[in-house]
Structure formats: C-alpha cells, structure tokens
C-alpha cells in the first residue's frame, strides 16, 4: 500500500511550570492511501496532540512528517497554507467548532474563499449546495445558523466544511464522541461512505474502542505519549499483546448479558507525563512488571508481521505463559 503520510520519531513536549510534559514521545507511524488508522487511548495519552502535530497545528519538538514523500516539517508558513488544501481536521465538539454568527453557507464557503477555489459567485453557491447534499443537509439549511441544529447535523456542517477544498487526508479528533448513539451511527456511516466515494485517508482518534474497531483498518494504542501497540484491527482485538491493551479491552462494558467477561481491574497510580521516569510508563499499573520494566524503556518491536508492541515481556504473553488471573 502506498504511504500517504508518515511520522518519523515525532516528539512534542510542552513546557509547564513543573517541568517538561511529554505529550507525544517518539511516535512513528504511517497511513496508506485510502486507509483509516484508528488511534485509541485514554485522556491525556497524547492522541489529540498527535493529530494536531500531523497538520502542524502544533509544531513538533523533533521528528519528521512526510506527506506524499515531502518533508512538510521544513515548509514555510505559505507553503503550509497550501498544504492545508490536502489535510483537514474535524474536531470533537460541533458546538465549539462552528462560528455561531455565520450561516451554514458562510461556514462552508469560508475555506473556498481562503483558497480562492471558485471564480464566480454562482460557482461557489453551486459548490456549497453540492457539499451540503453530499453530507445529507437539506437545501433549506443554506441560510440557517448553527444553533438551529442538533449535534448530529452540526457535525455534518463541520464535515462539509472540511471537505470543501477536496482534501485527501482528514484528522478526525473524536468526531462522534459528543453525539448520541442513534445519531452517532448516522455520522459514522456518512464518514465511511465519503471515504469510499472520495478516496479519503483518515486518522481517526477516539477513546471509544468499539467505534474505532468499526471504522479503522489499523489501530494504534497510545499510553502516556507513546505508541505501545500497533497492528491491524483484527490482530489488536483477537490477539492483543500489551498488558495495557488487554486490560483496556476487558474494561469495555459488554452488551452481552449471557457471557459476562472477567474484567481486569488495573491498580496503582498513573505515571505523570511531566518529566516521566525511565522505564515503561505503564509499569506502575502493570501486574507483570519486573525490575527491567522500571529502568528500561521497552522498544516497539515487531512481534509478528505487522503487529508491533512495546513491552519487555511480550514474548511470554504471546506464548501464553504470562496471563492475567483473577
């Protein structure tokens, strides 16, 4: 599969009063054209920062971002503005990401004007209407304001705006987390239809593993700024290898009333991402942790073809000699 975007050793540190916050720490990944990479992790694991760094909405502290083979980390501001034609972002909260004083049409045509896409007003109107139809908004919405819509339809406006300049790559940062399930399914289906129709590539960030499972081809699991496991969707769900991934999957409430799964309840304190100590960042909560886990940072190794995991003891987990017990 041809790579569309690639991150090489991306780090993003923030200076905070008590030290250096390692939001994203040495992440490598690549996404093929037309693919969806799902990023899961709990609050504070750096998944949103990662998404923003990819578009250089945050400047990476170090590392390279390659888009279609070009190193965009070296691009100047003007060049970056041109690049944004190809890369867009959808945010979580459709109540905050739309200007309440703009009508739907004004919102959607904003990127068209910024990038001087249309040559006439008639063309612009036609384009806006086509976009509205594409995301399932009725023509009547043209002159309406965002407050007249519920969350699901607002998110449709956000999607239409992101698609206005025909991007290839979209960072979707928790796009359905603020929506109710019946509406959430509408938006997920819409995003998947658009992907197929327009050949889009997604980075899909979410804390909800069931949504990520549904929409992604590959999945990366983050924990405190690091990518700790990365594999195809099938491998992650059928054969998770990192103790954190295993615990995370078991913690998800299941709808199955007949087969109650045993939950792995994690104990211990969460390590602070500010000046993190050496060693595995999950070690303090990990029942399998031994001495080396507290002194040496595990590297992301390829445990089986295409399945990467950062754990000192993955081989024992893989062979089944190391298992969670109640």
């Amino acid at each position: 599969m041809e790579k569309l975007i690639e991150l090489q050793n991306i780090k993003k540190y923030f200076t905070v009063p008590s030290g250096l916050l390692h939001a994203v720490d040495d992440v490598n990944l690549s996404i093929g054209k037309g693919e969806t990479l799902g990023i899961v992790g709990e609050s504070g694991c750096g998944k949103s920062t990662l998404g923003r760094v990819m578009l250089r909405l945050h400047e990476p502290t170090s590392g390279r971002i390659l888009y279609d083979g070009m190193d965009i980390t070296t691009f100047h501001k003007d060049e970056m503005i041109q690049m944004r034609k190809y890369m867009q972002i959808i945010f979580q909260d459709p109540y905050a990401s739309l200007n309440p004083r703009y009508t739907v049409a004004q919102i959607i045509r904003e990127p068209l004007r910024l990038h001087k896409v249309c040559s006439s007003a008639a063309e612009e109107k036609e384009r806006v209407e086509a976009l509205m139809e594409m995301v399932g908004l009725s023509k009547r919405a043209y002159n309406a304001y965002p407050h007249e819509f519920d969350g699901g339809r607002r998110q449709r406006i956000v999607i239409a705006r992101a698609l206005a300049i025909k991007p290839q790559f979209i960072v979707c940062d928790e796009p359905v987390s603020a929506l109710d399930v019946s509406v959430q399914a509408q938006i997920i289906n819409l995003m998947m239809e658009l992907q197929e129709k327009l050949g889009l590539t997604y980075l899909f960030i979410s804390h909800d593993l069931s949504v990520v499972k549904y929409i992604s081809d590959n999945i990366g699991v983050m924990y405190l700024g690091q990518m700790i496991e990365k594999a195809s969707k099938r491998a992650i769900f059928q054969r998770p290898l990192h103790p954190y991934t295993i615990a995370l999957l078991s913690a998800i409430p299941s709808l199955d009333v007949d087969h109650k799964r045993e939950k792995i309840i994690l104990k211990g304190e969460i390590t602070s991402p500010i000046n993190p100590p050496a060693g595995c960042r999950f070690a303090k909560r990990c029942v399998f942790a031994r001495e080396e886990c507290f002194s040496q940072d595990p590297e992301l190794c390829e445990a089986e073809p295409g399945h990467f995991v950062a754990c000192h003891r993955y081989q024992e987990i893989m062979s089944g000699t190391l298992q969670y017990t109640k």
Partner: protein
Amino acid sequence: MESKKTVLEIKNLHVHFITDNETAKAVNGVDLILHEGESLGLVGETGAGKTTTALSIMQLVPDPPGVIVDGEIYFHEKNIIYNTDKENENMRGNGISMIFQDPMTALNPIMTVGNQLAEVIMQHRKVSKKEAKETAIQLMEMVGVKADRYDDYPHQFSGGMKQRVVIAMALLCRPEILIADEPTTALDVTIQAQVLEIIRDLINRFHMSMILISHDLGVVAETCDQVAIMYAGEIVEAGEIREVYKHALHPYTVGLFASIPRLDEDSEKLIPIEGQIPNSAALPEGCKFHPRCKYCKEICRHEPPPVQREGEHIYRCHFKLF
C-alpha cells in the same frame, strides 16, 4: 414469584419546564417501581428525561421553570411530592442519595474533601466532629481513597479519585436508595471499570437499591437487574435486563441496539435510527417515536400507544413487531 418489597414507586409523573416562550415537556407519564435490593438502569439519549425523573425523586427539580404537573412518587408508601422542605432535607442523604455525572463540579474546590465529608454527616446526624471524621475516613477507605488524603483539596485528586469521594459522600448516611446519574461518563474506561466495581460492591454490602442513569447500554448490562428505556419523556420499554436485551419489543430499543458498534462481534453495517431526537417543546402527536419509526402506520400518527405487557416485560407500541 415471591413478593418483592417496593421501596419506590412513581405513578404517571409529568414534569414540564415552563418559560415565557415555550413549555418543554421533559417527563410525560413515567411509571416506575424499584424493589428492595434491586438496581434499575434508566437508559436513554440526551433529553429523554432521565435526569429530570431523578431530580423529581430527589425533589430537586429547579422551580421555576420546572413544575411537576401531575403524578405521585411514593417512597415507602409516602407521597413525597407533598413533603415539606424539612422532610425533604431529612429524606435526602438518609433515605435517597444522588451521585452526579461530573465529579469535577460536585465538590467544593475550597474545602478539603475530608471536611466536606464530615460536614455531610454532621448535617444529617447528631455526632461530634471526631465521630464524623471517623465515619468519613471509614467510607473513604471503603471506596479506595487512602485516609491520608483527608486533608487534600479536590484539585489534588484525579477524576476517578474525585468520583470515589463523591460516592463516599452519597453513602455516608447509608441511604436506602442510591441514584447514580451517569457516574462514570466523565471517566476513562479502565477507571470506569474500577468505579463500577466499587458501586456494585457497596450496593451489595449495604443492601441498597439503585437507579443507575446511563446512555451506555453496556454499563447498564453489567451493573443492573432491571432496565427501563426512555424516549421523549416516556418509558418505552422496561423489564428484566436479560429479557429486554435479548428480546427487545419496542422499535426504538431495537434500533438503539442496531446502531451501536459491537466489540464482541464483527458488525457488518451500523443501522442508525434516521431522523432526530424530538424537541421536548414540540413533541409529535400520537406515538412520540413515530417520525423515526420505520414501521409507522396511520394509527401511530394519532394515537398514543397503550402499555403492553408480557409478564414483567412492558413496552409502549401499537403492534407486536418482534
């Protein structure tokens, strides 16, 4: 069937929020029975009336604009709608306690958590400060907060730890009923698992009854015995959890299950419920779900459906579709 003791019964509850411009009909005829030692999940989407129902039980509906326009709420055979303020104060905490969704805003930021807990005990019981502190520490330890954090302020706690403090606070006076309004929605899944385990454990230990409000059918499946599905201020389906999850009879419940991505199986395609959740100030006539229902017939547009029963399993639909 053995006769289970009823601790709480709601009959035909209607709650409206009346403003100059409009009347939002938040709760429209809710009937509910909670038995001793039972946990009931109240499920529904935003604006379904779950929280308003809970606030009615607590006698905390903000008035104005909220008005309980009709209905009765019996707590131990006493209709609490006619309670005096004094009686309400006594009931809250001792009889019924509530945990709110957001642990970040439920605690006073300028008071140590220990003092907040002790204050609750002294408010409800005639005890010395020393005894109050002892009880507070006892409960803190029960929910897994170390005693040495008694003098810490809320901002020094993580989200999960704050929610534990809030749970401890709700249980200080050993209430008979605990109402938990989305207690884990603001938490990460691994933390959610910890907090749910604590809640389940305490419910059993104190032999309490619980109403758990959630939009998450998974959380309810793992915590409750009974479930009631709310839509537009009505309970559209209710019953024993296994019954409802395996043989849902209302098109809304069926649609809800079809629209959730499953973790335990490979879902082919999500089937969303088309349309939007109705505005509570302009509810449709007839069956409130009819504009979104793919089985809608003429009668559904005009006549509110009756409550149908199959044993303990009830649903509000003109037809038996499934």
